[in-house]
């Protein structure tokens, strides 16, 4: 682990936290005096299961408590929602069959999950996880948290990134930067302190796979190439094992339970347990008890490896492509770093070792390293860490639709971001006042094969004869990997208005409405919580004073002192129901001061009473 040069000259700045919003687990971390640290929850674990359950009263249960509800209330409890972020229902039809929850109609643009009587989008569900993490950090650090760095898979497209940013906003967080998970991990490893060189980061998580190749030089982390698959991870291994188990169980029990949400979740958790055990021991027992029935299977690691080999092999193609794009041979890669829970699987490690011909680093906890890196990036943004800088790339090419349904590429994949391109557009009809630009993301050459990002409408053009208009459009991918489009009329030099119609995802107005709604419902709004906590403290002192008044010690006070206590008591009562926690605390302190002698006297009385029965 490296040491960090930290500048604490400006202590009063707002703290920025780092968040790993994972498919399976999420974590929050911050930069401490000695380096980045993850923040544990009340249960002592830093891992918050990314599971959200909607309660009957409209509130949410998140994390480990929600995991138990996966079995009891499968239709109201959501897991792996990251796989649905920034997606349309057509993208995920296949895997939805394995999810027990229902998709509401009208989900082409944004998936809406039907939970009880409510419909929730993936960003809203992710916002619950973020809110829980925010809460954790606020409890732990004792201050309000409003700014964060959130990590995303490097191979996330524009819509998936935007959806993550939206989730932050709904949770009351200003997302100052989206940082790619593998690059964040490389920051946490502090590899730059060892020596300059080329590093490959292999990140196989619960639902996504990324490979990034970086050059490290004098504190600069320059990504040379990245590749991946946003639908490949431990979940696929679980699903493979689950469907095999379901078939086998159907044969043994003579009953198909695959449509029974409760049974499926029970089997799913047993399969995951067996998978995790097999990373450490050569055999594990798959043990399922359900409604009086039992299923037992001995699982050997070599058989398990046979069953998942093709899934692991699917990570190798992106690795080779990334090396080609970086113009490097395996021998030129100095170090390989493993990130993500699935890299604990021995088969994954051996496959990576064979490909890169180097033993991969596994020194940091693969579950925590991304969150730690996010905290380092947060410290870079706040200016506390000044010797490091991350130069990341866009994972996918950006293009526009041209004549004949062909994509014309404007910004190529693996371009360092921020990156930009300009194109001049004109009109094809006399007096035409709108030009519609269709932007796509990906490597495919034909529009029909590509993935639509958004349509940009250049509106209110000055009416001129066909072909005379000259509108310069600037496409800019910012440091978060998100596209911004601006346009200028070259003839008048004026800024041109651009209306964005995202192909997948929420519009700005929709997000704004969700932000407002969540504020109304925000149970754990920091302000409200402070008031609640102050009242709890007031309750404690009320009952203590109440008790004291019936104690003998009360009569040791003179009448002025008793009046002062009563006055302070009344004053606290008066502000108790107000919303100003500082005022409540102020009155608590005053009451505390006026009752100090009373408390001392009570103590003395108690001591005397206690001593009475004792022979010294």
């Amino acid at each position, binding site marked *: 682990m490296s040491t960090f040069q930290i500048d604490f000259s400006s202590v009063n700045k707002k703290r920025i936290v780092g968040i790993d919003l994972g498919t399976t687990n999420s974590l929050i971390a911050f930069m401490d005096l000695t380096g980045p640290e993850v923040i544990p929850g009340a249960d002592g674990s830093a891992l918050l299961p990314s599971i959200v359950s909607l309660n009957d009263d409209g509130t949410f249960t998140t994390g480990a408590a929600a995991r138990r509800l996966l079995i009891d209330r499968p239709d109201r409890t959501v897991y792996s929602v990251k796989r649905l972020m920034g997606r349309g229902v057509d993208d995920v039809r296949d895997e939805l069959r394995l999810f027990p929850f229902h998709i509401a109609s009208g989900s082409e643009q944004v998936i809406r999950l039907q939970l009880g009587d409510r419909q929730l989008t993936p960003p809203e569900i992710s916002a619950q996880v973020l809110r829980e993490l925010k809460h954790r950090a606020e409890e732990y650090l004792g201050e309000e948290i409003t700014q964060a760095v959130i990590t995303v898979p490097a191979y996330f497209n524009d819509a998936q990134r935007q959806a993550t940013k939206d989730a932050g906003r709904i949770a009351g967080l200003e997302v100052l930067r989206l940082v790619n998970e593998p690059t964040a991990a490389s920051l946490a490893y502090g590899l730059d302190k060892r020596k300059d060189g080329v590093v490959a980061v292999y990140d196989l998580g619960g639902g996504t796979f990324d490979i990034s190749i970086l050059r490290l030089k004098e504190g600069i982390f320059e990504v040379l190439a990245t590749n991946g698959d946003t639908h490949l991870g431990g979940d696929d291994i679980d699903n493979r094992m689950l469907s095999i188990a379901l078939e086998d169980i159907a044969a043994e029990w003579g009953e198909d339970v695959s449509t029974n949400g409760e049974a499926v979740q029970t089997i799913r958790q047993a399969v995951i347990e067996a998978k995790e055990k097999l990373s450490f021991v050569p055999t594990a027992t798959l043990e399922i008890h359900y409604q009086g029935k039992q299923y037992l299977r001995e699982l050997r690691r070599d058989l398990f490896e046979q069953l998942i080999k093709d899934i692991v092999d699917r990570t190798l193609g992106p690795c080779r492509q990334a090396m080609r794009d970086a113009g490097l041979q395996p021998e030129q890669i100095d170090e390989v770093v493993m990130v993500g829970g699935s890299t604990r699987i021995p088969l994954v490690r051996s496959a990576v070792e064979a490909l890169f011909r180097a033993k991969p680093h596994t020194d940091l906890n693969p579950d925590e390293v991304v969150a730690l890196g996010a905290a380092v990036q947060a410290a870079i*943004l706040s200016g506390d860490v000044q010797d490091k800088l991350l130069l990341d790339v866009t994972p996918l090419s950006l293009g526009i639709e041209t004549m004949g349904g062909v994509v014309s590429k404007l910004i190529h994949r693996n371009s360092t971001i921020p990156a*930009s391109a300009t194109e001049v557009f004109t009109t094809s009809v006399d007096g035409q006042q709108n030009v519609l630009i269709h932007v796509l993301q990906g490597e495919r050459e034909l529009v029909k094969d590509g993935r639509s990002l958004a349509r940009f409408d250049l509106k209110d053009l000055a009416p001129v004869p066909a072909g005379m208009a000259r509108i310069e459009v600037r496409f800019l991918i910012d440091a978060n990997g998100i596209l911004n489009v601006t346009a200028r009329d070259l003839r008048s030099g004026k800024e041109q208005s651009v209306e964005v119609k995202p192909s997948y995802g929420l519009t700005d107005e929709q997000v704004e409405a969700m932000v407002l709604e969540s504020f109304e419902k925000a149970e754990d709004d920091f302000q409200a919580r402070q008031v609640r906590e102050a009242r709890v403290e007031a309750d404690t002192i009320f009952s203590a004073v109440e008790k004291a008044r019936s104690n003998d010690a009360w009569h040791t006070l003179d009448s002025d002192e008793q009046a002062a206590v009563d006055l302070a008591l009344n004053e606290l009562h008066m502000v108790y129901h107000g919303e100003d926690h500082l005022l409540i605390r102020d009155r608590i302190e005053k009451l505390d001061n006026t009752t100090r002698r009373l408390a001392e006297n009570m103590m003395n009385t108690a001591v005397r009473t206690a001593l009475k029965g004792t022979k010294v």
Partner: protein
Amino acid sequence: MSTEHNCWKCGTPDVASLFCRYCNSLQAPIPNYYEFFGLDCQLSLNPDHLQKQFYQLSRLLHPDRYTRRSEQEKHYSLQASSILNDAYRVLRDPIRRSEYVLNQAGFEIGDPRNKEVPPELLEEVFELNMALDELRMGDTEVLPQLDEMRQHFMDMMAEMDGELETQFLAHDAQPDDEARRKVLTGIRAILNRRRYIRNLVDEVDKQLTSRNA
């Protein structure tokens, strides 16, 4: 060519660099790639020096450094670092770099998808198309021939790269713009030929990978 302006923040006149010399605030970026890097318009560049400059400028301009600054400076930082990254991508690659210089000097550059066959390549292109057609029909016996032709084209490109390097030095050594333009005309001819051959190689690669897939 350099554009001088007053500092947007403190009004100091004639600011010609990235930062105001008086109040040190970030200025609207210069769009010319060479000026951005503080370089003369040379075709021959030292890649190590360029990389060093790139890292140094990144440290000064990247949006990560402007999180706690004014909206105006955030905006300029985003613009400036996008130009920096675009400039580095172009300048570090000899082909794109020379195309950029040609463009700046007002030369028309051939359409990258130009299908007009240079006369000296007619015979080879004909042969290549025959072989590709046969491959498309499923005749795998042409594979060794295709490999050989691909290698031949790659050798031609390598030769041209050497030629370009000589021309780059010649360009940089010329005393005035007029003499430089003469060299640029020659460079453009090499680039057009090279681009044509590049397309041929890409075509072969595309056929081979689609066969493997």
